[in-house]
């Protein structure tokens, strides 16, 4: 009756371990935090399992999956929680087929009810929420922010060697994404740009506003994916980052459902748009109907 928790992202690994402990106590079993790399920096109050290998696993999606599923198949857990990162979704899906188990996706507020794992997720680009269930044993991916981490010192560390692993894809290299690193998920203020900006250089004033307020810069999908004005790490929305800052300022963003899905848990949403009918105003606490090229300088003036 064990519950395994895994994420290659250490913060998320610590968060989902809280969920693993809750479910384990409901099932009457133990929770294990599984890692494939350095465990020195993991601060969880519970049992750690370290999978070691004669091969370099870090950065190799296929080997990560192979090592984790090999361990999970041997341990036969009741529930496997996996951080809902891109790699995490991949692992959860491939594991599900290997152990013929259901895979809940992006679920929060997990509970065990009548032998089923039940959770809540958003669907239809965040417009609706769904209650979903799968019989145990099963797998679930957990988004960031679903659980609060309870940090502590590991009570035990079990090391298991995973040698002679083979993979179907050949990992060539890991490359850094961009030189700048924006931790948008941790920012308490985010100033975000959308299609309302006419050219890349104009983002300078948005950056200045972010700097003045001590915030990070975000954007909607067209700016990072289509125009490439900002790196993908700035992209907020369904296919980008989910954020929950105290203040989110959407500048020149029309407010497509996919974008709004990423900002739902924000405390205060501000929208600046010249189109009075832009859907972003429907989900904003405060809105300014006006030309961003006039409004941003005005904001900077009053903040100076």
């Amino acid at each position, binding site marked *: 009756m064990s519950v395994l928790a895994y994420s290659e992202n250490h913060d998320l690994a610590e968060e989902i371990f809280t969920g693993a402990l809750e479910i384990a106590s409901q099932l009457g079993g133990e929770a294990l935090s599984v890692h494939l790399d350095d465990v020195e920096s993991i601060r969880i109050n519970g049992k750690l399992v370290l999978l070691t290998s004669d091969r370099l696993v870090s950065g190799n999606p296929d080997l990560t999956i192979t090592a984790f599923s090999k361990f999970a198949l041997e341990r036969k857990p009741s529930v496997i929680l996996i951080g809902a990162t891109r790699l995490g979704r991949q692992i959860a899906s491939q594991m599900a*087929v290997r152990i013929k188990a259901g895979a809940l996706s992006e679920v929060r507020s997990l509970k065990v009810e009548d032998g089923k794992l039940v959770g809540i997720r958003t669907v239809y680009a965040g417009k609706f929420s769904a209650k979903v269930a799968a019989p145990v044993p099963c797998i679930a991916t957990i988004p960031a922010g679903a659980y609060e981490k309870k940090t502590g010192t590991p009570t035990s560390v079990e090391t298991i060697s995973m040698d002679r692993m083979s993979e179907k894809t050949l990992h060539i290299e890991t*490359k850094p994404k961009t030189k700048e690193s924006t931790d948008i998920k941790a920012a308490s203020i985010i100033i975000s740009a959308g299609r309302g900006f006419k050219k890349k250089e104009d983002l300078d004033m948005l950056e200045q506003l972010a700097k003045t307020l001590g915030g990070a810069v975000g954007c909607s999908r067209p700016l990072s994916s289509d125009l490439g004005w900002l790196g993908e790490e700035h992209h907020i929305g369904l296919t980008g980052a989910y954020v929950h800052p105290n203040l989110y300022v959407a500048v020149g963003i029309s407010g497509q459902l996919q974008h709004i899905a990423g900002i739902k848990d924000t405390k*205060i949403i501000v929208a600046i748009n010249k189109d009075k009918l832009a859907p972003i105003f429907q989900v904003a606490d405060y809105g300014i109907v006006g030309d961003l090229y006039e409004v941003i300088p005005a904001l900077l003036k009053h903040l100076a």
Partner: protein
Amino acid sequence: MKVIVCVKHAIDESELTADVNGKPILQNAQTKMSVFDRNAVEEAIRIKETKEASIVVISLGGDDAKKTVKEALAMGADRGLVIQCDPTELDTLATSYYLARAGQREGADLILCSEGSSDTYSGQVGPMIAEWMGIPFIGYARRIEVKENDVKCEQVYEDRLEVSEAKFPVLISVVSEINEPRYTTLLQIMQASKKPIENIPFQNLKGSDAPQTQVNVIDVNLQTMNRRRIMFEGEPDEAARKLIEALKKEQVINA
């Protein structure tokens, strides 16, 4: 070479409305090809433009799923296949099983799908198909280099890029930044109606290893966002001043 593209006939989430009880009105709801799947179709067509290739589009659903397949055919795919079933009865594990069996029946060098669907966005079906078929999976590709017997891809993860290679047959999921999907002309749409679409009842693909649906949706409710919608119109300077005042009162910016 032969390329399969898996496309989802999805609920158009932007048109989806709720009834008085906050439940989605799914009957007669607008449907469309899942937005990100257009990038997978586009990538297949671009491969066909540089190499000799035939493209088969596979979808799953009732009669109306044909609409999505036709859209892909208009974009440039050669042939369509609809696995006939009630998709609401299948979870990702079962959906991927039938797509995988259809894929095996077809046989292909390359199978493309998107990173996730625009309506439910689980991101599970692609990697699951690869696993059912026992073939390599390369996820979140933003660049695909097709070689003689293998592919080389650049994959986008949250904080890094990974470069991987795999031999045919391989399943690749693409991210939307990989390309800009083409629009179809009326002529292409008319020509597409002459392209063959085959229907297969899902039972015909069912083997002894077919999984039962595990994940069930118990309840769906409208998510409400209670925002105050306080608007400042008029002079930008005055609006900016009022906004800053309000944000200070909210204690979300420093005074």
